[in-house]
């Protein structure tokens, strides 16, 4: 494995980690407020569909993005209605949302485009372009030119022009969302209340703050972030929507959230790790590791296996927010 290959793998790690990260932060806001969200997958999926569909119809990825966010927020509101307003079971609501998204997207795709449950391929302004950082293109050209010659460049510059530069805007948004989330959660009034409501909603209620409003706020943020995640999947990473294209990413994000112990910075590392696993799995079929041959299926299953190991508490215990999963009912 040469240096350039490593850079390429890291480059695709960042791409693949982006939807995970956005979804993971969505789960973070939701679960920190006490609403367990196993419907991340479904919300990403509706957003992926609507952003691709609307982008295909209007030719503008930005309008598509807006449509995706709106759809994910609407699904969030269903979850909120079930788990906040009607104090229903959050897990069951999440399961329902995942199915609803999986069925609806294909249903509508078929009705709108009649292409077997997919959207037309997106191109041009209907997709997110990659942003080239200042000088990146020139550096790449220079590197390639040198390589074509007999020079032996180390390729260190590739860190800049390949790994850092050249992603779509949503990648940078996702990375930026990490410090922003941290700041909001730990340095603002809203964050204090949000964390409190996930630990002991009665404390928030008796302090004169509306539990319902706070939880809806967190759910809306989750909707927004999953909306971005879904839009990135179909208009950034891929060029259009296909059936069930989230392919379990919502659950990997959930796994990353547990891995990250419900903390923004840890979430970044967890998502990068899972993104790396996916990138490596994509590039190599079977990997040889100290004499063992690891099948590609093992690489695909690794995030899930790691999560189970973490949950089992063998590697540091993950303590979820205390009021998570429980609807707030005033005690008598």
């Amino acid at each position: 494995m040469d240096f350039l290959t490593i850079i390429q793998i890291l480059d695709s790690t960042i791409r693949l980690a982006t939807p995970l990260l956005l979804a993971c932060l969505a789960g973070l806001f939701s679960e920190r407020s006490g609403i367990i969200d196993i419907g991340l997958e479904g919300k990403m999926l509706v957003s992926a569909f609507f952003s691709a569909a609307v982008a295909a119809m209007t030719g503008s990825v930005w309008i598509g993005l807006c449509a995706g966010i709106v759809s994910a927020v609407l699904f969030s509101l269903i979850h909120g209605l079930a788990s906040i307003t009607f104090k229903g079971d959050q897990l069951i609501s999440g399961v329902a949302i995942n199915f609803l998204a999986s069925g609806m997207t294909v249903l509508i795709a078929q009705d709108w485009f009649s292409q077997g449950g997919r959207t037309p391929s997106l191109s041009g302004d209907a997709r997110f372009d990659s942003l080239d950082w200042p000088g990146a293109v020139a550096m790449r050209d220079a590197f390639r030119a040198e390589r074509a010659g007999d020079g032996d460049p180390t390729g260190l510059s590739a860190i800049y022009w390949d790994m850092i530069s050249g992603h779509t805007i949503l990648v940078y948004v996702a990375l930026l969302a990490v410090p922003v989330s941290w700041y909001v959660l730990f340095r603002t009034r809203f964050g204090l209340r949000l964390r409190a409501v996930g630990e002991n909603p009665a404390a928030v209620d008796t302090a004169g703050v509306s539990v319902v409003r706070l939880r809806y706020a967190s759910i809306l943020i989750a909707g927004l972030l999953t909306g971005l995640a879904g839009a990135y999947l179909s208009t950034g990473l891929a060029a259009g929507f296909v059936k069930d294209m989230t392919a379990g990413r919502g659950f990997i994000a959930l796994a990353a959230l547990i891995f990250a112990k419900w903390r923004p910075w840890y979430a970044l590392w967890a998502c990068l790790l899972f993104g790396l696993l996916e990138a490596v799995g994509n590039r190599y079929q079977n990997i040889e590791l100290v004499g063992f041959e690891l099948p590609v299926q093992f690489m695909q299953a690794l995030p899930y296996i790691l999560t189970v190991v973490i949950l089992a508490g063998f590697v540091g215990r993950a303590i979820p927010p205390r009021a998570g999963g429980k609807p707030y009912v005033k005690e008598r």
Partner: protein
Amino acid sequence: MNQATAPAIELKGISKAFGPVQANKDISIRVMPGTIHGIIGENGAGKSTLMSILYGFYKADSGEIFIHGNRTPIPDSQAAIAAGIGMVFQHFKLVENFTVLENVVLGAEEGGRLTPSLSKARKLLKQLSEEYELHVDPDALIQDLGVGMQQRVEILKALYRQADILILDEPTGVLTPAEADHLFRILEGLKREGKTIVLITHKLREIMEITDTVSVMRRGEMTATVKTAETSPEQLAELMVGRKVLLRVDKEPAQPGRVVLEVENLRVIDGKGVERVRGIDLQVRAGEILGVAGVAGNGQSELLEVLGGMRTGTGTIRVNGQEIDLTGKHSDARTRRKRGIAHVPEDRQREGLIMDYYAWENVGFGYHDDPEYNRGWLMNNDALRDDARRKIEKFDVRPADCWLTAKNFSGGNQQKIVIARELERNPDLLLVGQPTRGVDIGAIEFIHQQIVALRDAGKAVLLVSVELDEIMSLSDRIAVMFDGRIMGERLPSETDERELGLLMAGISDTEKPHDAAEVEQNLAHARGKVM
């Protein structure tokens, strides 16, 4: 009406129903500013509901609230806080993994950014602590504090919000007499500052000690409001219950026989690795009731749970001379029952009963593998139902319907189902925890009589209760627990509440005079480890 003479609180015709249960019925009350007003009543009389309405935690179905003479609708806690009302709930409303400072600030922050709010609160908190003797470390996490300290945080929370009306719901339930005295001194100080205080309690002693006026509630209604100076405990008790009550249990002197239960060097470590029971030795003989007194959280519950097979421990326990398994395969509650140990647990709703099971299913709970209830592979539900009908009749459970689920019975009748199940097994040893918590006075007498009758039948009884009255009146011998140890044993005839109170605070030398500060320090030290 001008501001000076208007009542600080005036409630007019407050009613509130929870489903079919009328918790408050047309209640009116006036509390003058700068006074301490007590609200007394039995469990379930509607005291807490009424005050929760005043604090906006519940919404009243009808009625009006006036604060300082102005009609003030209180639809939520925010409105209550704005009206200058603060409340310390019986179960504290604190965020366990937040600091004291964060808890105090929560909901009363200034501006969107947290840091300025916190630093401002830190200054104010310091000022308040000094003013009212409410010292507490602002950076400590709530989960590391003892209950007494947590209560201070709750009071500080109210003061920080500039409350001039403070409601406290059963504030002494978790405190020793000495800690309670300290709390009362704080309340006196607040009163001097002109604050109005409402104290909800079911303890007559506290009412007599500290309040200026007192209102009595019974079954959702306000039965009387009187000046404390012009009433007596007997009169209040009668108002609470609606008839004359015996505050003492009639019983013959005990006839202790052979030793039934022997406990040697018992130790219990809880799930968090804290040692809750720290080497206990005790004996209970046939035909006697050993009462274990102590402030909640000093290891009594764990003692009971180990004996009942709900926890593991180390040391030696012998029942009828035979050692029982404390950690192994046979340390479970099922095996204990087979060894003749019956257990009336402290919390009947979480432990003693399955609230969604029918009465007849609950009658076999814990004994469900008894051959009497089984036929081969299957359970014999007919036998269970027959047995249930018999017990319901014998113990006068109402309504006498074995097809009702446990949650449809009142607290007293639920407890009767548990007592019937455990006592009818004719055990050698009965473990009883808080037998009358949340039980109406009529049922209390009945339950006490049943326990004494079991003793008179020559059985050993171990009673754990945080109610000193109950311990004093039922026990033949009293052991006081503090910080996981037994501080001393006394005979009820040779001790009094003061001495027991000192023992409960961890002071074994009860002869010499002690000041409150010493008691407090002692408790704080112990709680640092225990809580």
